[in-house]
Every structure is written in C-alpha cells, then in structure tokens.
C-alpha cells in the first residue's frame, strides 16, 4: 500500500522474531569472555568485516523483578536513564552518540533491561565513559518524572490501548500466570503507571543498577584485549552493590483449572483463537526439554509446511493462518502458544475444535521425519547466516546471560537442537498439552453476517505479546 511503510514507522518496535531468534547461535571461536574485579561479566564477539561496534550493557533486572504495585517502573527507569547525570546533561548521551554517527536505544523485558549504542569502532571508549557514568550517577528531577511519565503513557496508548490484539494478549497473559510477575505487562498497568514516582524509580535504580548485576557485551571490530583495557578503565572502578539479592521470584503454583476468556472489541476485523500452555524454559545445564519444545513449535507451526498449516489450511481448509511459538529463553516458567485464524464461514468454536483434533491426531501420527530433517538443515544454515549479523549475536548472549544461562549453555544449544529425536518431541508434547495449565482465548469483533478470513503478513497476523519494549 502506497504510504504504508511510513504510516507504520512507529510500529517497528513491535516486530517480533521469536522463532528465528530461537534457532541459531554463534560459532564459539568468535566469542571471548572474562569478569572484572567488581563482578561485571564481559563478552566480546569479534567480527572484523566492517569498522563498527555494538556496545551493550545488560542488567539482570526486568519488569518481573519489580515490587508489586509499581508495575512499569523497570521500563520507566529505562527511559529516565537518558536524563542528566553528574557529568551529562539530559539528552546529552544520545546527542553525543548521534554526533558520532551512531545510533542508541534501550529495551526492557520481563527478565532484563539493556542499553546499546552502535558506532564506529574507534568510539568505543567514549560509549563506555558515558554508559558507565549512568550506571550510578543519574540525577533525576521531579520535572523529569512528570514529563517522561506522560511519554510512557503515550507509549502504552500506542502499543496497547490502540490495539485490541494487544489488550487481548495482556488479559490472556494475566490469566496464564497465577502468581508470577510474568502476568503483569512489561509496560505496566495503566493505573499504576500513572502513579509512578521519583522514589519508585530511584529505589529500582539503586537496587539493581550495579556492575555485579550487569553484563557488558561488545561485538564487532574489536579485540578482547582492547575491550579489556577499556572496560578496566571505565567499568572496573564502579563499586559493586554488596546487598544484591538472588532473583527468587514468586513461583507458579500447580495449575489445576483450565482458563478461558473471550474479548470483544469493535476495532477487531479478524477474529481468532489463541491457546497458551505453561511450559518449562531453558535452564542452565538442563536444556533438553526446551530443545524438544523448540522443535515441536517448528514441526507444528514452522512456515507453510508446519503440521497445523498442512492440516488446517491446506487439507481441511478450516483456517487461513495457523502458527505456534515457544519462548524457550526465560528465567522462570514460560509459555508455548498456538494460533488459529478461521477461514470464511468457520466459527471460533469450530476452529478451536479443529485445532484440538489436529493436535490429538499429531500425537497419534508422530513426527514426520523428513520435516524434522529439513528443520535441522535450516538450523545449521541459520548458524552460517547469523554470522552476518553481529548485533543479533550480541543480543543472544546478553539475553541468555540475563535469563539464567551460561556461555556454555548458549554454545551447546545448536548441538542440543540437532540431537532432538522424534520421540523427544512427542514426549515433550504429551507433557505440554494439558488444558489445566492452558489459557484459551477468543478475540472477536462486532457480529457480522459472514465470518472473516486471514492475514498472511506479520503485520496483520496475530502475534504473541511483545517480549520487549524500547526507549
């Protein structure tokens, strides 16, 4: 459509790449790691093709680490980190990055908050000087709070209030978690965001922003020795926080009752059904079940030839679109999800029933060996293609290390995926598909004479709730 790329400018942050992000990993020889004396872990990923570096600091603190009642404060603080410090004016960091031809931003998820700049390789020291400064020296004013709180509320308006799909995701996610903070949106509940104060932001900052709770990732045209020298100069002098607590967050109880919800919004043109199941995540030294679940999500929902698509779109013609996703990387219990967008004339109840029939059939039929081979081939190729994008590698390590994994876990992952057998997938699927741990949602618009059809592009297709929100 003529102006759509522009009209959609502001939506880019919503783009999600769960499946591809789950698949590939770096070749080990590019990666070096060490730890500074104050406990800050450092990861260097070398790529000398272009004189560019990505400099990232990841904090092991996200929205799920917030105190109850101040939802959204992790993300609010992330915005406020662009305000003044002892040595930088408000906005000066971004301005300096831009004047050096770089780009910068930040993002917050359930489990981490991260800040990054992408600049010419010879500007790395400057980036470290500024990033290390704002780790401890932020100087916030009441005025900053008032203005920036309006900005995050407009951000919530844009991402969530203006999108019935996002509002629906938010409610479904809240129903999935009975006790864990993953049920609270990263951006925050609106009524709590409106009350966020300077004290709330500072309390979070002082508790979590410290070198022994942070990971430095530098990727691009640098050597580990150069990074070590600069990191010692800029980050090592910062004292650790001796009062840092372990991340023991409230765990989910045994889930024993199926949850169902329906949401109607006049802004919905395309109804659909979602189903999510509580699922185990990748744990350090224990990633085999997660590897099987990744393969399950690919076997069921991977592209045109996923089992759901072949059965429901091509064969039965009951759906226009199906998909499956699994968020393996997560500090605590995660979710595995399914979508079905019904074909013209098929009701949501019929679509849901067809989905369940196909899942039952899948457990009987087993895994198509040829499909599994093709998935493994694509994973191998993904390791080659990923070397072309050093920033995504940097994100892989930063997010993994803040979500309970070690470098060894991250590097073993591709081999674990290759080792998954057809039986492993079926065993994982049988454990997973328990409706007592599931949330089923129906999203509908106002009643129409005929029922609708489905999206092919990521823009219109249903999406899992945003995993991160940006500055």
């Amino acid at each position, binding site marked *: *459509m*003529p*102006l*759509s790329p*522009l*009209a959609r*400018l*502001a939506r880019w942050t919503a783009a999600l790449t769960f499946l591809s992000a789950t698949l590939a990993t770096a070749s080990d020889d590019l990666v070096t790691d060490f730890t500074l004396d104050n406990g800050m872990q450092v990861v260097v990923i070398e790529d000398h*093709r*272009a*004189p*560019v570096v990505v400099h990232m600091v990841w904090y092991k603190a996200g929205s799920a680490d917030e105190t109850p009642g101040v939802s959204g404060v992790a993300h609010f603080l992330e915005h406020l980190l*662009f305000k003044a410090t002892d*040595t930088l004016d408000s*906005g000066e960091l971004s301005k300096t990055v*831009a*004047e050096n*031809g*770089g*780009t910068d931003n930040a993002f917050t998820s359930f489990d981490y908050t991260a800040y990054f700049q*992408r*600049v*010419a390789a010879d*500007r790395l020291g*400057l980036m470290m*000087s500024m990033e290390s400064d704002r780790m401890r020296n932020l100087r916030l004013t009441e005025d900053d709070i*008032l*203005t920036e*709180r*309006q*900005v995050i*509320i*407009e*951000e919530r*308006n844009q991402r969530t*209030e*203006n999108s019935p799909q996002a509002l629906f995701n938010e409610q479904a996610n809240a129903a999935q978690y009975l006790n864990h903070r993953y049920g609270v949106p990263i951006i925050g509940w609106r009524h709590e965001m409106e009350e966020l104060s300077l004290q709330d932001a500072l309390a979070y900052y002082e508790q979590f922003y410290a070198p022994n709770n942070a990971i430095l990732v530098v990727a691009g045209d640098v050597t580990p020795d150069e990074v070590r020298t600069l990191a010692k100069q800029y980050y090592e002098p910062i004292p650790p926080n001796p009062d840092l607590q372990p991340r023991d967050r409230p765990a989910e109880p045994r889930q024993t009752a199926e949850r169902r919800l329906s949401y109607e919004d*006049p*802004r919905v043109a*395309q109804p659909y059904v979602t189903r999510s199941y509580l699922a185990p995540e990748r744990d350090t030294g224990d990633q085999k079940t997660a590897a099987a679940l990744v393969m399950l999500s690919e076997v069921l929902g991977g592209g*045109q*030839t996923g089992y759901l698509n072949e059965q429901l779109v091509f064969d039965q013609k009951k759906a*226009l679109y199906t998909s499956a996703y699994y968020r393996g990387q997560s500090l605590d219990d995660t979710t595995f999800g399914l979508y079905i967008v019904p*074909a013209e004339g098929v009701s949501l109840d019929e679509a849901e029933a067809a989905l369940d029939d196909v899942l039952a059939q899948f457990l009987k039929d087993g895994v198509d060996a040829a499909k599994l081979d093709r*998935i493994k*081939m694509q994973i191998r*190729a993904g390791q080659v*293609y990923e*070397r*072309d*994008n050093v920033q995504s590698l940097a994100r892989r390590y930063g997010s993994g290390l803040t979500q309970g994994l070690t470098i060894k876990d991250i590097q073993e992952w591709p081999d674990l995926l290759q080792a998954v057998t057809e039986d492993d997938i079926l065993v994982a699927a049988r454990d997973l598909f328990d409706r007592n741990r599931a949330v089923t949602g129906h999203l509908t*618009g106002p009643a129409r004479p005929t029922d*609708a*059809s*489905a*999206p*092919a*592009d990521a*823009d*219109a297709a249903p999406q899992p709730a945003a995993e991160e929100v940006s500055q």
Partner: protein
Amino acid sequence: MIRFVLPLILTLVTAVPLRAEVEIQEVKTPGGLTAWLVEEHSIPFTALEIWFKGGTSLDREGKRGAINLMTATLEEGAGEMDALAFTRAKEMLAADFDYDVSDDTLTVSARFLTENRDKAVALLRESLIDPRFDQDAIDRVRGQVVSIIRSDEKDPNDMAGREFETQAFGDHPYGSDGNGTLDSVAGLTRDDILNAHADTMTRDRIYIGAVGDITPEDLATLLDDLLGDLPETGAPMPDDIAPALTGGVTVVDYDTPQSVALFGHTGIKRTSEDFFAAYLLNTILGGGGFESRLMTEVREKRGLTYGVYSFLVDKDHADLWMGQVQSANDRVAEAIDVIRTQWSDIAENGVTEEELTAAKKYLTGAYPLRFDGNGPIANIITGMQIQDMPIDYAETRNDRVNAVTLEQVNDVAKRYLKPDDLRFVVVGKPEGLTSTN
C-alpha cells in the same frame, strides 16, 4: 556542563568520519544483464536482490490488487511442484526467498548457502519464470489478502494513510491501496494474475545486487540462467503526479483512545540540487533521532507523544514532505500546534550553524554504519542502481553532505517548508479539532 567527559568527546567528534568501505564491481552478463557485486568470501553464503521497477502502480484499470496477489502467489507452486512441494524443496536447501511489492518496486530477495547455490538458484528460477498460479493457490492467498484489507479498514494507522493518499493522489495509483479493495480482489481471475506477472517481471526494468561468497564469473552465469528467459518488456510506467493537498485538518472519526495523525505537503525530488540541503534540514526538523526539533519539543519537553517524525517521501512519480505523530485524544491538538509552530519557525528563521554541524556529523558518521552485513549491502547497492546513482556514489556521498552550507539549508527551509500548506489527517476522537476544507 563541562566535566571530565567533554575533552574526550571533542577529540572524537573531530575525527574524520569513516568511508563506506565496500568495493562494488559492475558485472555484465553475456546475456545482457547488468548487476553490482560486492565479493565477501568470509561467510559461505550469498545475498541476492532482484528488483523490478514499477510495482503495484502498474495494475491494469479495474484490476487493483492483481500485482500484489500475483507477488504473494509466486511462492505457491512452480514447475512440477505445488505450493507445499515448493516450500519443502526450499526448506531442504535452507534457502530463503522473499517476494514483496510496493507502489514502485517488486522485489525478490534471496539468500542461499554456497554448498546449495546451484539447486537454490534453479528453484528460485522456477518461481520467477514458471510460477503455476494454481487456482486453489490463488484463492487461498486471496482469502489472506481479503483479511488484511478488512483489518486495515479498522487500523487507525492504515486509515490515516489511506485518507492521506486519497487526498494527495486521487485517481492515480498512488491514491489507492495496492492490496486492492474487497470488490476488486474478489473479481480477480487467473488471467489477471498472469497479466500482472507479464506486466511487471521483465528484463527492461530489472536491477540486481549481489553480496557474498561468489565471483563475478559465477554471478554472470547464475544470472543468465536465472533471468534469461524473462520477457523483454512489460507495462508502461505511470505518469508523474503533483500532490493535490491543501492546508488544513481532516478528522476521520474513529473510537480509539489515541489519535494517529499524518501530515504533509509537497516534497522534493531526489535529483534536485536542493536534495541534500533538504535531507539535512529534515534530519534537524524530525529525522529519526531523539535530538530533532520535533522530538525535543513534542516529546522531551512536553511529553505529548512517544514518537514524532518527519520524512521526505521520494516516490518515483511524486514527492512529499511528511510527518507522523500519535497522541491521546485530549492532547493531539496541542501536539499538532507544536508541530505547526516548529514548521513555521524553521521556515522563517532557519536552523543554526550548530544544528547543521550536528546533523552533518550524524549523517556522515551513520552512513558507513549502514554497510553491515551481506543482506543490507545488497539492498543498498540495488537501491543505488534503481535511483540511477553512479557506482562510486558511496565514496562521494559524505562529501556531498558536507558541502551543503547553512545558507543553502535555510534557503531550502524558506522555499519548501510551507506551514500553511500542511494537511493533517487525524484518525481518532481528537478533542478541539474539526475538519476544515
């Protein structure tokens, strides 16, 4: 606030910006095709871009949406293979093919491992030269397109885009949605899809960029195999059109909490001698960064939005200077007020030398950073060709940016920024705003 950081900043910002360090070769094939190539043998794969000038604007009269539907059906079966067989073959090779179309361009993006190159190219060739366009595949994809059209009808961003396009371009193809309407898409036949293929994917409008693990000789052979059997010529290009926008406000009533506003007036051609001055000016006004005038005034100082941007829209047959903002229904009127004030202020008073210097440093420093990775570089070098830029453009581009003077920028501001000509299309329930003519 001069503190310890400052001396370091000064030393570094005065450093000479990087140059884009890519060596582009022109490859001419025996079959008469021209491609640009950047050899990069350190990772065993190739990124290939094949672009056809024209896009959905070449839809025939009454057949709106045919080219979009055709493009989306290219991967739904070719030669001996139906849709699933084609996808399985692609998965087996771990090759990626993406087919996309916009107003002005139909793009095919491929990437494939060196070990699978011949097979991947043979498969891609089937989809370009011998797509099946089976009736059931057309109908399946049509169902998806219809769903997208219905969803877009209720999406405030799309609603704003459509209203703005209609006002600017009327009956010109730019004035309507390339997806087509529910009626036009329902009426498309297999013959319409075949015509759409013949109209768009031809040798006389093709632009090719390749980056990766391939030599010029191998690329030439590959391209003649891949594209040699495409027809020579297709549909004529559409006419140029001057946007018919007038100053004022259009409110599209829609019950949603945050209003979406698109705004704009006539723009500037990329080939104009004023273009670089305008590009710098737009960076200062509302280009991507947090430092632009609009971001500073609307977001940073007043908290009225999460994002506000301006951008130069340089289409093949029309030019616009546009912007976008989203703000709660009770605050969007103020946001628009601030935007108008900034537009006027820059038109009247220009920008400062300091702002211009900062924008130059940003643009010249950021340019080489775009060249990161085979895929992005393939995109850039194909875009350079379709915009008729010289092969050494990347080497001279920063000099052109640096050559722009403050006088030129402020002269462009006076001549091109027309606050009274700005048309704001606002979708939502904006308080204190009503439509004007």
